[in-house]
């Protein structure tokens, strides 16, 4: 407030200058905890970006974000926000609650992964009607965690989830988006069901995928469907399930938790995976309050190998820029040989997973959303 008053006095209270007056204020950021690296709070991110951040925790629920931004007070409260995966930027941009970006103000934009320039699904995730609306931060191709110590082999197909020898030891994510997409990828690539686009299925395709799952549910194949990070970790760490379709950080934490009792690993499935990314966007309210500069500084950090190396090493998320391996090799004090080997290994497997031709991009708003909901309810009732 003090900085605002001083700046306003210097500028003679001009409208444009008033906007700049706010630039010294903290960037009011609405983001999930997984969108930071370094210290437990945002101090490391602040130091790298050279800005102050006023952080508000955001859940992983796309509905909450969209509701708050489109019909709620999100634009009043937040200058910048992160998303919850595929399709949100289109929804938000179409409602005029986020603004297009000037990528020339992000020096590290030159480092961005080529897939974001080449066109196609990944490039679409940051654009709306041809304009860039978002800066990508992290990505992944969701797969399956398994206890190698018990299984004794490395599964490379989703089909193992339906192997009768693991009856009652399988968990799926309790979310029709990723679960139906991954199952559709498996059923399509294994030739069991004809599916055109696993990310955006027709009602008939949704029905076929759900009926397949209903059959196995009735046979008792699934122990449960997990909801929430800790829940997913607990199932694997306690040995309640041996196989679980889940986010990679769940496998990492579960494996740390079990120590030598289990060997929980994250596989690569030959059929493909649901790919996704998370991005940071500048809100319309943020632009009106002159938060552009702070936003671009933070976006620049998100596209730096400093961030990429840390998100990869800490949470196993894919970096969105080139040069991460070079950065890791150039900083042996932060990444000693053993750690470097582990991170490079994750990076290599992640590159392979993301390059799988069978992958389908996450889509939080498929055209036939009602069919997804209705058939998911049937699966629950079965």
């Amino acid at each position, binding site marked *: 407030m003090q900085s605002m008053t001083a700046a306003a006095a210097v500028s003679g209270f001009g409208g444009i200058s008033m906007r700049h007056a706010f630039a010294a204020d903290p960037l009011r950021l609405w983001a999930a905890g997984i969108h930071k690296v370094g210290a437990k709070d945002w101090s490391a991110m602040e130091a790298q970006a050279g800005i102050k951040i006023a952080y508000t925790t955001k859940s992983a629920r796309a509905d909450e974000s*969209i*509701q708050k931004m489109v019909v709620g007070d999100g634009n009043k409260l937040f200058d910048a926000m992160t998303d919850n995966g595929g399709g949100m930027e289109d929804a938000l941009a179409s409602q005029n609650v986020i603004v297009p970006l000037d990528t020339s103000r992000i020096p590290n934009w030159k480092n961005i992964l080529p897939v974001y320039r080449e066109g196609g699904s990944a490039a679409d995730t940051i654009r709306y009607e041809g304009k860039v609306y978002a800066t990508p931060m992290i990505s992944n191709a969701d797969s399956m965690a398994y206890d190698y110590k018990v299984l004794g082999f490395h599964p490379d197909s989703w089909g193992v989830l339906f192997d009768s020898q693991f009856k009652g030891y399988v968990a799926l994510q309790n979310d029709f988006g990723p679960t139906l997409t991954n199952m559709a990828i498996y059923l399509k690539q294994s030739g069991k069901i004809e599916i055109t686009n696993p990310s955006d299925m027709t009602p008939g395709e949704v029905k076929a995928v759900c009926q397949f799952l209903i059959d196995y549910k009735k046979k008792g194949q699934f*122990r*449960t469907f997990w909801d929430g990070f800790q829940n997913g970790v607990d199932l694997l760490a306690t040995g*309640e399930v041996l196989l679980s379709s889940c986010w990679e950080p769940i496998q990492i934490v579960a494996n740390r938790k079990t120590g030598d009792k289990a060997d929980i690993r994250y596989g690569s499935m030959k059929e493909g995976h649901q790919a996704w990314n998370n991005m940071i966007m500048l809100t319309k309210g943020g632009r009106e309050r002159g938060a552009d500069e702070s936003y671009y500084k933070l976006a620049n950090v998100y596209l730096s190998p400093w961030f990429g190396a840390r998100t990869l090493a800490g949470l196993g998320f894919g970096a969105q820029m080139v040069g991460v391996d070079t950065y890791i090799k150039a900083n042996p004090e932060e990444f000693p040989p053993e750690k470097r080997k582990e991170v490079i290994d994750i990076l290599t497997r992640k590159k392979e997973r993301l390059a799988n031709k069978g992958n389908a991009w996450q889509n939080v708003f498929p055209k036939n959303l009602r069919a997804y909901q209705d058939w998911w309810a049937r699966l629950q*009732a079965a």
Partner: protein
Amino acid sequence: MRRDIESTSPTAGGGWDVPASPSPWQRLIGEDGLQKWVFYVPIAFMVLFFAIPMTATVVWSVFERTQFWMEPGFTFSAYENFFTSARVENYLSSMIHSAWAVVICFVLGFPVAVFVRRRVPRVAQHRVILLFILPFMISELVRVFAMRPVLGRYGLVNSFLMDIGLINEPITVILFSPLGVIIGDVLSFLPFMVFAGFLAMEAVQLYVFEVCDDLGAGTVRTFSDVIVPLAAPGIFAGSVFIFVNSLGVALVPIILGGPGAVNAGLIVNQAIVALDFPLAMAISTIMIVTLMALLYVGHRLFDLTKILEPIN
């Protein structure tokens, strides 16, 4: 003016004793001031936090769904969607599980209330009942999640039963199953039955037990023919609390339920996640109607005003 003159009277000294006029403070809080309005506070509370939200829920349930919200209109499509989809099956099975939780809570909790009323010295009765509040001091999330290491495949129950040789393989049906949800509901909401049951038992005079003993009625007959009918309004009130919570608290099926386990609260939550707000409102309306019907039937059968008799 005339009234003022009449209300005054001469004093012994020959002067006039004029009643002191109330101070501004007395006028503010006196019977004609704030005091009068205090009685309207509960009504205002009920209107603000009960009638208006309920009406809004019903009205929104017939609105048109838009991409991200809803707009005024009049359509029953949300209700049609509910009754023609598997959601209705999920809702009904959720009601059945909730009913089981009520029955088990009654079997476990009401005898505790009777025991405390009959056997515990009067001065200690309330303190004993207050002990049942203790579980509520812990977050419900923690309480429910704590059931996992107890009921799990390698949990305490299975380990104990295997250690004593009663079973060879872990029993998996007690977790991640409808039974797991019922167990979770019972452990979460059992104190409601104890409280309501005890409140109802306070209306039952101790001599009733003595009369039953003198007349030779056995324990079972005394319980079923005398105690339960006398405490019926309280039992019903406790049952409603348990039923409504089991139906609406989404945490229990999420943590202890099987693949895709849901209750009514979770069905609403899932409709909101899919940005289908009219559907969420329609299911909420159906829940409200279910509860109202339940209360109406209960009142007709047991006269729920009797719950407050001990207080009177």
